[in-house]
């Protein structure tokens, strides 16, 4: 097979579409392709067998392939790649694609399609993939000529990674992968219809600087866009120069170091009191790669009841003034805009900076005093227990044991919020979760993607007994590739977030939110050759975590039996505003012990 590869490299002989696909992926320097074979992609899989340019990771369900590719991208900043077959393979991938779309993650999903003459004939394993995915991709393609494969894949990677990133689907009919064509991979892409703006408008940047320097109650609010745009170092520089408070959204955690005194915590529905109060009461707000969504500011009317001037930096113009009218929009790549702001700030305040060394912004000591008062409310303090494991305590210990340096993936629900609240992320691209779509089941495949991205890193999957069962089959994939992931399952025998809402808003009618007939997770893990641990006593939490993370080459599944009744606080109910925060629900019936 080597001689054949050599032949095609050396001569201009036509090659098959399948081989073109492989060579394109190699040109893009793809290291991992997460996939699952099937009829329509057999030609491609045959070429995968013959190559060693990238490693193919065989998952156990196509959804997991896309999630793993998505997490690989979140962890590295590179484009993740998944490969699935037509029909059910393609539809299984859709949840993964929609998840990536909502969080603007650059991935390329290659799906097989029935042969061109069979399209539209209701052929076996046929589904209109381009039609099905249209509302949840940045763009998609159906390749109908072998000559178009290379240029299309080039475009797919370019579109996925530039501007506001997102998933791109390339649907390739089976016969096209067998047809022959000369191979030519374009060096660059020119598209008259797609030219993302990179540099921010300098007049707007000047205006923003002036506003920031004059602010009395400034606030810096950053989201997933800052992390994805690799703008965190520039943001840290800006924030430290100004000495202003910073909050991160759920997607933006790690964008500013959580252990820094200027950090006021996550904001939003389950954000800290100080973050939400500062957001509500600031006079100048700078939003960076964040989109004022419903889980962040709640009801826009409540938010707008306080007057403030808003500066908004975003690569996507449609994110600006969507839910909240913005005063100074700056469209551009966050890294480029922030670096220009830092330069402008340096020039503007050179004299001041040299005399005072730091805090060249307005004197905002009164504002900090106010923020410290809000901090004094201690909205993140929970009542620990010696008899039952509190989920928050597990996360705090996880943070200690991993020295705050793990990749933490989560599923969706209460455990996700506790992980976000109690694990202090100091680095970007370490907190990997489904913020936009809120997809249960992402946790384990996300952990796989992270572990492939950084094979020696500590990877913790914080999950619940509900979420983990949505992609539990991936325990097998983890065994096959020897991934030393640590699963931290907060097992409260409830779909906790559903139960919490039923407690608050449906008078304790726990409709279908109890998780019955759970497996013995320890035995389940062991059956795959993993290590299983069950922890029921609060005193054992720290020791168990240490023991698990000491097993550097083992996958450890930790089943923490936690307090069934614990709720996530603070909380802003859906549809309410930031000023309507609930710190603790007084719930006598459920908190007697």
């Amino acid at each position, binding site marked *: 097979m080597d001689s054949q590869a050599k032949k095609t490299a050396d001569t201009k002989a036509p090659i098959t579409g399948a081989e073109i696909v492989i060579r394109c992926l190699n040109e893009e320097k793809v290291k991992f392709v997460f996939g699952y074979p099937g009829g329509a992609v057999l030609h491609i899989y045959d070429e995968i067998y013959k190559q060693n340019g990238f490693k193919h990771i065989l998952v156990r369900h196509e959804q997991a392939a896309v999630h793993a590719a998505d997490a690989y991208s979140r962890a590295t900043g590179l484009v993740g790649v998944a490969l699935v077959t037509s029909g059910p393979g393609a539809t299984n991938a859709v949840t993964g694609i929609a998840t990536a779309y909502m969080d603007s993650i650059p991935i390329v999903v290659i799906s097989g399609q029935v042969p061109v003459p069979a399209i539209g004939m209701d052929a076996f394993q046929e589904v209109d993939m*381009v*039609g099905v995915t*249209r*509302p949840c991709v*940045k*763009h998609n393609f*159906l390749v109908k000529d072998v000559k178009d494969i290379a240029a299309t894949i080039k475009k797919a990677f370019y*579109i996925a990674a530039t501007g*506001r990133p997102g998933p791109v689907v390339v649907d390739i009919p089976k016969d096209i992968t067998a047809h022959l064509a000369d191979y030519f991979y374009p060096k660059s892409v020119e*598209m*008259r*219809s*797609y030219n993302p703006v990179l540099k921010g408008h300098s007049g707007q940047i000047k205006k923003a600087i002036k506003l920031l320097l004059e602010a009395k109650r400034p606030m810096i609010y950053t989201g997933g866009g800052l992390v994805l745009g690799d703008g965190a170092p520039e943001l840290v520089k800006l924030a430290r120069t100004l000495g202003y408070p910073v909050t991160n959204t759920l997607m933006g955690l790690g964008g500013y170091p959580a252990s820094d005194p200027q950090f006021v915590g996550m904001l939003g529905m389950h954000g800290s009191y100080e973050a939400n109060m500062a957001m509500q009461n600031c006079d100048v707000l700078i939003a960076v790669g964040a989109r004022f969504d419903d889980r962040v500011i709640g009801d826009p009317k409540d938010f707008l009841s306080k007057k403030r001037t808003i500066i908004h930096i975003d690569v*996507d*113009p*449609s994110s600006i*003034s*969507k839910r909240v*009218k913005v005063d100074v929009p700056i469209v551009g790549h966050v890294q480029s805009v922030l670096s220009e702001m830092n330069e402008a700030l340096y020039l503007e305040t050179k004299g001041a900076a040299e005399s005072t060394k730091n805090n060249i912004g307005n004197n905002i000591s009164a504002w900090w005093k106010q923020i410290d008062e809000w901090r004094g409310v201690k909205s993140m303090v929970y009542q620990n227990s010696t008899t039952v494991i509190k989920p928050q305590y597990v996360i705090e210990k996880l943070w200690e044991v991993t020295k705050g340096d793990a990749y933490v993936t989560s599923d969706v629900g209460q455990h996700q919020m506790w992980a976000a609240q109690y694990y202090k992320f100091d680095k970007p691209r370490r907190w990997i979760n489904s913020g936009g779509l809120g997809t249960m089941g992402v946790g384990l495949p996300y952990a796989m993607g992270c572990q492939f991205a950084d094979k020696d890193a500590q990877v913790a999957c914080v999950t619940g007994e509900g979420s983990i069962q949505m992609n539990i089959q991936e325990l097998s994939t983890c065994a096959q590739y020897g991934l030393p992931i640590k699963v931290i399952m907060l097992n409260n025998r409830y779909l906790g977030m559903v139960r919490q809402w039923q407690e608050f808003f449906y008078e304790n009618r726990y409709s279908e939110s109890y998780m019955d007939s759970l497996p013995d997770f320890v035995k389940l893990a062991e059956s795959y050759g993993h290590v299983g641990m069950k922890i029921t006593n609060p005193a054992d939490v720290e020791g168990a975590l240490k023991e698990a993370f000491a097993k550097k080459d083992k996958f450890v599944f930790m089943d923490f039996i936690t307090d069934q009744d614990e709720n996530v606080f603070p909380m802003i109910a859906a549809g309410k505003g930031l000023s309507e925060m609930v710190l603790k629900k007084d719930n006598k019936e459920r908190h007697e012990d």
Partner: protein
Amino acid sequence: MKHIISILIENEAGALSRVAGLFSARGYNIESLTVAATEDATMSRMTIVTSGSDEVIEQIIKQLNKLIDVIKVLDLNDGKYIERELMLVKVKATAAFRDEMKRMCDIFRGRIIDVADGSFTIELTGSGTKLDAFIESLDKTAILETVRTGASGIGRGDRILKL
């Protein structure tokens, strides 16, 4: 408020469904949508008549621009423009009413393009409101069938939407 939005878009399979899908997915109104290739066959020109508050129209334009296949977007209402729509109406034209129907058609500067035993088919071009007015002025029971193309729009004078 009603807006007429002109779009230059790559003439590719599925491009129309991306635009139509965007409007339905985000809950925007479409009063009418017309599309055909331009003098450059690789591009299509689309005219969409929609309505919404200023904020909604701003979002529609931004979201349209975000579609990868969309080359240019112009809100014709931002300046002076001309709007034209074609309508074909088949009306009852029995002996007693034939003259009356012909007169009506002339008043609106329509043309009778098909004459049959009991009916005329009238071709009428104009703004949407003119076509509405014609329909209004006819006796409802006289209308057998109508078909409208939806509005096409173009900027006046120097306002040119081109690559």
